């Protein structure tokens, strides 16, 4: 088993992401968030397990469903909340919103509004590090939907021919918006695609943070030895529709129930309890996270809107 401190840290992050998504949906309903909001609920173990395996200098590339990656990489909740509320102190000064949060300081190249488009960005970050002779891995998060886009195939091949330290993290949540994977792929074991490019590939239970973490540690070690890239397919399921306004009625009730039983928070908590944590300790941790979240929301709500005059002046000066 993993050390209790690590399991505690990972559970705390799982819980933080879930709390962030629960809060953001409420804020959306209250009209404080506009546009698109793609909750990561149900997929948290992937971001948490992978990011726990990364080093401080490593990079990540996120997706339109990106809050979890940002948090797992150490993103600051108040600035995230301010950003999704479109406020000036947000990560992107209210210019980006949920789909474009990035955090250069933590090596997070950012979320992306175009499915698959972030994949080559991450390979490029790895290439730059490789040219500079630096030991950095780029973990690229993308979806089963993105794996049917041309840049996935191209980027897998490019990373392979140059042995780049890229951890391709295929978050297979089994839907491209509403289209089930069975309709878009004959072989639904998407990690099989890696072999065609000579890339070491495997599948993991994307709802089990320990399994994800252990595979990610192995994959990073391989990348750092110069034997990258690695493709890890993390099989998971959304706990809702594609975005906040999609009830996900096309998702069969029995599958939803199956994956709810395997909720990443339930699995993560079980690991933690098995390693000796008490229910009281877990409850205390959860209460701390709830308090942090309330503070972040309060920060967002109190934050000023960007000034239109200043915005126009910036444009005219550029």
């Amino acid at each position: 088993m993993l050390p209790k401190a690590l399991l505690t840290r990972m559970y705390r992050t799982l819980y933080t992401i879930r709390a962030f998504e629960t809060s953001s949906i409420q804020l959306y309903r209250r009209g404080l968030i506009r546009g698109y909001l793609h909750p990561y609920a149900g997929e948290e173990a992937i971001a948490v397990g992978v990011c726990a395996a990364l080093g401080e200098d490593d990079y990540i590339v996120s997706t339109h469903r990106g809050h979890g990656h940002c948090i797992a990489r150490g993103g600051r909740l108040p600035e995230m909340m301010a950003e999704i509320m479109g406020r000036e102190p947000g990560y992107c000064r209210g210019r980006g919103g949920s789909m474009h949060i990035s955090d250069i300081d933590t090596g997070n190249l950012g979320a992306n509004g175009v499915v698959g488009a972030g994949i080559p960005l991450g390979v490029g970050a790895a290439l730059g590090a490789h040219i500079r002779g630096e030991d950095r891995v780029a973990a690229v998060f993308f979806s089963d939907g993105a794996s049917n886009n041309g840049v996935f195939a191209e980027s897998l091949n490019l990373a392979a021919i140059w042995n780049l330290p890229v951890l391709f993290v295929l978050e297979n949540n089994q839907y491209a918006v509403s289209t089930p994977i069975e309709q878009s792929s004959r072989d639904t074991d998407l990690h099989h695609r890696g072999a065609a490019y000579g890339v070491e590939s495997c599948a993991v239970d994307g709802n089990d943070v320990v399994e994800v973490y252990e595979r990610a540690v192995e994959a990073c070690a391989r990348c750092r030895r110069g034997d990258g890239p690695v493709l890890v397919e993390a099989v998971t399921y959304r706990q809702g529709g594609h975005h906040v306004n999609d009830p996900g009625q096309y998702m069969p009730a029995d599958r939803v129930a199956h994956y709810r039983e395997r909720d990443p928070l339930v699995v993560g908590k079980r690991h933690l309890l098995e390693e000796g944590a008490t229910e009281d300790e877990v409850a205390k941790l959860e209460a701390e996270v709830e308090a942090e979240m309330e503070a972040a929301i309060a920060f967002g709500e109190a934050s000023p809107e960007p000034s239109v005059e200043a915005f126009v002046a910036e444009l005219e000066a550029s």
Partner: protein
Amino acid sequence: MGAADRVILYREALNEALCNEMRRDPGVFIMGEGIAERGGSYKVTAGLLDEFGPQRVIDTPIAEASFTGMGVGAAITGMRPVVEILFVDFAMLVMDQVINQAAKYRFMTGGRGRVPLVLRTQGGVGDGLAAQHSQSLEALFYHTPGLKLVMPSTPGDAKGLLTSAIRDDDPVVCIEHKLLYLSEGEVPAGEYAIELGRADVKRSGGDVTVIAWSGMVPRCLAAAEHLAASGIEAEVVDPRSLVPLDRDTILASVRKTEHVVIVQEAVRRGGVASDIASIIQAEAFDYLDAPIEILAGRDTAIPYNKQLEQACIPQEADIVAAVRRAVYA
């Protein structure tokens, strides 16, 4: 011609810019199809592999969208990539990475991110390359906020503009012209940068302002000599950088000559010439003595046959006729 200037080819001038910048900044690297061993289809990158090695002079597979995206990712994380797209026609394969990623990243990050990327490509009609290798597509990049766009017409401009493009912290598209690679011109030796957004008056004259860029510049200069023989002195203004655009130099010339002809190889509809015309009429309407003439490529794909091909693109005689219309209107 200064003491340090020599006459070299356009492609050699580009090579000097790349070579100097790669020596100056270890973050500069280049990638594209056949640019390393082969030295590029037009020999722009010849010799760079020998000096800088395969780490910084990278031959890519035919995967334009992804290697351009890699350039964007490397740029975001501290490098200065120069990505070559063999033909501007093939840049259609990378438009998501250029328009949705590179052009918007700085903005979307609230100014925290930078994309110091150069996309080098070449366009225009060549010698029978037909519909998918002959286009002039600058308007697509010109239209997009967040991109800079340069189109050098001489070897000197090619070196100076590419140097500045590489040093710029924003994405710059550099569209070369395939018919200019073997053209000669004076080029300063050593480091040479031309500030982006500075037009160049390629020929002075008091009767009419002819605005042209890239491959149309030498053609306009030839037309201007022809016109001079019949007493019409044309001032040929080459913006060189379309974004940012040097409005001041264009408008100063228009106020002097009061007649304007804009010549572009690209099709007219939705083109850069129309936008420059709109700027002139808004800023210098009272100075205009005649309607602005726009001479542009025909509204068609480029045909293979030589006579048909030439009929699609402004020729010297067309420019002479357009100037006469403008001056005598």
